[in-house]
């Protein structure tokens, strides 16, 4: 039987309950374009020979979108089994060098991008408004958690600045952590480095406690997902090992949920916005949609923008086509060939005559924007975060 940190695979993932029906493979967003076969990998987990895992380099193709877990008729979690199989490879050092570098960078620099910690607050340089910094003694009701990619990626830094503009205009009492902001660890866990993830959970919970943070608004669905689910699981796990984790009830919201609540409360209304006469299609990010069933809040926010022509993909909500940005795929191309899902997505948007594909996730923004250029729609289509649209329309 395979084990992850001395716990066997059946205890962790109930792999013996798998009946090999293949619904997971039939649903998978990457088996469209690679040899990745989740049913076969479940079989390998059942048979339990570590050597078999090493022969499947396509294990790194998984984007961790989670559709297999959504659809499994036995309520198993194939997408989590992938994390377990990757853990075996990490423990044995059988990791692609680009993944190794990203993990090493999380350990050394607290971000997977190989960028120094001292430059994490660079996105704030061009800001024209004052922002509270909760690591420097400022106090605020909410922490706006930016995340690694939106801190360092020069394109996505614009989303971070748009977020600050919008929340400031709406009178939200919030602050950031600047250079002290840590990596949430979501991608480290997905790449199979559970030891590193445990360390981040411990460090980050202590850091939140030290800076008096309990309410968090995240830019990224990945940070949202890991703070609300993985942190709880790992807290329990760590406490069983005798490691004390602060008893902090974190109230975490993805920003689209937070904005939808402001609409409910009448604090965000159409009257506050200029006309926006564009055809816009919303792409559901997997970590918001499939993994957390958050479908309505982003649509609610978009729908109150005056003049907007909101259209929908045929494959939407829990059927949304994964953009292939997560599960470590920013640091590994995978074995797939042929057109990327992001390109397919952009073509779908084009048939809807969409002028803008809007997203609520930094990875989706990155992959779809790339797909737009590859497909040759640079002139006719934009890819924007919802925060960017709001920043544009808010008076």
């Amino acid at each position, binding site marked *: 039987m395979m084990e992850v940190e001395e716990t066997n695979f059946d205890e962790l993932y109930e792999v013996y309950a798998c009946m090999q029906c293949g619904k997971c493979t039939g649903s998978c967003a990457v088996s469209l374009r690679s040899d990745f076969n989740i049913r076969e990998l479940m079989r390998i987990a059942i048979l339990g020979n570590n050597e078999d895992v090493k022969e499947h380099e396509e294990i790194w193709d998984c984007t961790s979108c989670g559709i297999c877990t959504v659809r499994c008729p036995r309520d198993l979690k194939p997408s989590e089994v992938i994390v377990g199989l990757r853990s075996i490879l990490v423990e044995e050092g059988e990791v692609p060098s*680009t993944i190794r*570098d*990203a993990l090493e960078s999380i350990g050394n620099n607290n971000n997977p*991008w*190989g*960028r120094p910690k001292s430059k994490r607050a660079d996105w704030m340089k061009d800001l024209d408004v004052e922002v509270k910094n909760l690591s420097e003694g400022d106090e605020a009701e909410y922490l706006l958690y930016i995340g690694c990619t939106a801190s*360092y*990626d*020069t*394109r*996505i830094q614009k989303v971070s600045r748009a977020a600050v503009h919008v929340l400031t205009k709406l009178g939200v009492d919030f602050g950031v952590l600047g250079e002290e902001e840590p990596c949430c660890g979501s991608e480290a866990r997905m790449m199979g480095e559970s030891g590193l993830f445990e360390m981040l959970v411990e460090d980050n919970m202590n850091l939140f406690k030290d800076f008096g943070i309990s309410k968090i608004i995240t830019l990224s669905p990945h940070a949202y997902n890991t703070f609300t689910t993985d942190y709880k699981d790992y807290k329990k796990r760590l406490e069983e090992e005798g490691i004390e984790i602060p008893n902090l009830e974190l109230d975490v919201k993805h920003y689209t949920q937070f904005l939808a609540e402001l609409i409910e409360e009448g604090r965000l209304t159409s009257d506050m916005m200029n006309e926006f006469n564009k055809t816009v299609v919303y792409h559901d990010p997997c970590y918001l949609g499939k993994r957390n069933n958050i479908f309505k809040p982003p649509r609610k926010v978009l729908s109150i923008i005056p003049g907007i022509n909101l259209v929908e993909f045929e494959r939407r909500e829990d059927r949304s086509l994964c953009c292939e940005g997560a599960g470590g*795929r*920013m*640091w*590994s*191309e995978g074995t797939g060939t042929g057109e*990327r899902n992001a*390109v397919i997505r952009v073509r779908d948007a084009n048939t809807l005559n969409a002028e803008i594909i809007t997203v609520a996730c930094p990875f989706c923004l*990155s992959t779809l924007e*790339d797909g737009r*250029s*590859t497909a040759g729609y640079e002139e006719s289509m934009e890819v924007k975060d919802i925060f960017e649209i709001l920043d544009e329309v808010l008076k």
Partner: protein
Amino acid sequence: MAVFVFIEHREGKLMDISFEALSAAQKLNDEVIAVLSGENVGDLAEKVVKYADKVIVVDDPKIDTNNEAYTRVLDELIKKEMPKVVIMGHTSMGMDIAPAVAIDLGLPIATDVVKISKDGNIKVTRSIHNGKVLADYYLKDAETYIITIRTGEFSAEELSEKNGKIERVDSPLKEEITNKKFVGFVQPEVGGVDITQADILVSVGRGIKDKENIPLVEELAKIMGGVLSCSRPIVDYGWLPKERQVGTSGKTVKPKLYLALGISGAFQHVAGMKGANMIVAVNKDPKAPIFSVAQYGIVDDVLKVIPALTQKIKEIKG
């Protein structure tokens, strides 16, 4: 007093390090004796003897690419001829054989040496602390010293011709070596290019527009003495193979010069090349993020710049 030079060869060809070792030996102004052992090595002796006073040839099928066999043969020859110094390359083969011989015969050894001189005793220089310090060592008194030399430190161009004699001796190896077997050679993939090792990278992106324009860039790369690399879309289009891709999901490169042609500079690409000593970018969009990491930039269509650059470099190079 004689200096032994262990001759390395593989699949019927002499290795460059053998000539470098001969060059190192000649600097000691003593009798240079090359030791050429292996199976069917007779033809190679003619090429070696040009630079040695004597070549001792041991032709024995039992040696057959087995370092254990080479070691035992060398042990016996040293015992018989008593050379003052034995020189071989600090190669995987030399690293295997030299310490074994030193242990077998109880001789002092100096490894990975960059300079050898005679200053009363034999003096060797080794590069330590990642090349920051050169340390001189005198070897303590002994009948024979074993020395391995770093590749590329002794120039084969400085060899003087000696045209000595070839001496065939019977193999001292009495029986097959059974504790170690030679299995076979595995050749690296043919045509494989390692862009991480290049000093000059000429890199193309989407701005190149058409696959038919790739040869233009290839020509420029060739004339600059550089290697062709690219951004991700070029691999997606199938215009260049995956091994040429620079970026967080491709290769991280640190060339002396990175010429970015029609690459906008997406974060994932920049993260894979910002360690380059010098970045020169050509892009028609003045707002392209690549210009924020480039030391020099040209705002223009790459398809105009590439031929002009090729032409200019041709002129300079004559």
